[in-house]
């Protein structure tokens, strides 16, 4: 099951440059929440704070509070946290030295699971969830790099799902893909929200309109508006949101 997120007064910096300013936001469980906004508005930084990937960069820091089902993520070991909050990146990044199968079970092996039967079952389950099983089940021992871009991205989704996280962060997961592959990823996201809370950063407003239950608009590191997707697109409360979604800037 998915878990909910509560963000309170979140500030984030790269060196002296503040990229997030006092973000307060509720993200509901088992929903797709889209983060939209122009380049450099802090969208990526925001999702990278949720699994504490932001902290791994030199000179980067964050203050404030992020609660996962009421528990502070800062009280957890980042390594543990990332097994609960999975992430899919903009560019597909399968491990090139590993086969398709080894890519999927990489996270489980890190968790110390060695039982072949278990790994096998989990791999099939994850690949099915990522809608990739039918395409690769005959060549699981092939390199992940032998797949097309869209398949590689679904492989990365399967890899993230295999460790059974409760939240899945997606940082523009379809921006490097062609329209058909994008469509498949979007269908997949709608399928996945039954079991996961999904936060997706996207540049593409139509994409947000198609798949997100709620949408948040970021501008210059601030959260301008967050609400049900239909409301944000049909009836935005803030002038800046309206300007952005009608294409006046960004």
């Amino acid at each position: 099951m998915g878990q909910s997120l509560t963000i309170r007064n979140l500030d984030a910096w790269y060196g002296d440059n503040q990229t997030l300013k006092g973000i307060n936001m509720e993200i509901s469980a088992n929903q797709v929440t889209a983060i939209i906004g122009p380049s450099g508005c802090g969208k990526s930084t925001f999702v990278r704070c949720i699994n504490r990937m932001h902290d791994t960069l030199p000179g980067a820091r964050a203050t404030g509070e992020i609660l996962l089902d009421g528990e502070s993520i800062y009280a957890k070991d980042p390594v543990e946290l990332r097994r609960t909050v999975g992430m899919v990146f903009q560019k597909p990044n399968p491990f090139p030295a590993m086969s398709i199968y080894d890519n999927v079970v990489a996270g489980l092996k890190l968790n110390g699971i060695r039982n072949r039967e278990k790994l096998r079952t989990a791999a099939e389950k994850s690949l099915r969830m990522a809608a990739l099983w039918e395409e690769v089940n005959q060549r699981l021992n092939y390199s992940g790099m032998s797949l097309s871009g869209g398949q590689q991205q679904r492989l990365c989704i399967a890899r993230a799902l295999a460790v059974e996280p409760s939240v899945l962060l997606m940082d523009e997961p379809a921006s490097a893909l062609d329209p058909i592959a994008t469509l498949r990823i979007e269908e997949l996201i709608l399928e996945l929200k039954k079991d996961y809370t999904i936060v997706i950063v996207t540049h593409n407003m139509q994409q947000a309109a198609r798949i997100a239950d709620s949408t948040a608009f970021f501008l210059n590191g601030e959260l301008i508006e967050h609400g049900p997707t239909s409301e944000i697109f049909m009836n935005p409360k803030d002038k800046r949101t309206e300007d952005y979604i009608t294409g006046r800037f960004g």
Partner: protein
Amino acid sequence: MKQNRVKESIGDTILRLLTLLMAVSVVGLIIWVGWQMFASAQESIHTFGWSFVTNRVWDPVKQNFGALPFIYGTIVTSVLALVIAGPIGLGVAIFLNEMAPAKVRSVISFLVELLAAIPSVVYGLWGIFVLAPLLRDHVEPWLAKWFGFLPLFQGSPMGLGMLAGGLILAIMILPTIAAISREVMAAVPDSQREAALALGATKWEMVRIAVLAYAKSGILGGVILGLGRALGETMAVTMVIGNRPDILPSVFAPAYSMAAVIANEFTEATYNLYLSSLVEIGLILFGITLVLNAFARLLVWSVARGPKGGHLV
């Protein structure tokens, strides 16, 4: 069918031929050197045949020559160097690339690379006056005390010997291994590291599955390059290995390497068979290096292929 090829300009033709000539000259040089050695070694090859590489005796007075002790000494010291410098070089590279803050990184990598700039005769001197006494008085007695049940660490501690040779070589090839490993690790895209971290990898797990796995063929290449350097190194080894053509199991024992015997006895080779035997040792060293490099290519190539249908850089 008419081919619409762009006509090559005269300048391009000259450039093509000139660069071709340069490329061919390298190949030609290798063949020429090999052939020359083969020709000069004829007398020894005819006299001893294959027994030259299995004969353990090297006796210029009785005109009896065998290369086995030198092959043995070269291989043992080189392997010793690789066993010591391989893990350390890799550790240095991992620390510099993945752990160290930027300031520390540039200082330490400069110092490591400085090791490569020290002339080998200086290493030899340091080996004789510092390393050998240290080994004789402290390291070797300690090894003999705790690991003396192994034939490797038996016999009297002398300082000068295969252990000293191996250690000197290890220091000399360390910068090669560290610098190449560091470069190939730096070429690993950050997206790979992030992929591992996002799966809940610890720092070490991240290094293992994202960095080392990605860079392994390059690292292997660096290690082999280091081995190649160790096999051919002459001066420093000559000064510390003890220069005795013997085959003893203990690494404390003095030995002799192929490069060292050529350098030491070249001027003393007063008759043709003696000289010819030295050249044949050179030919064997040449052959070993060629075979090793070919093997290394093969290894790097097969590792780089990774799983089916894939390719690493």
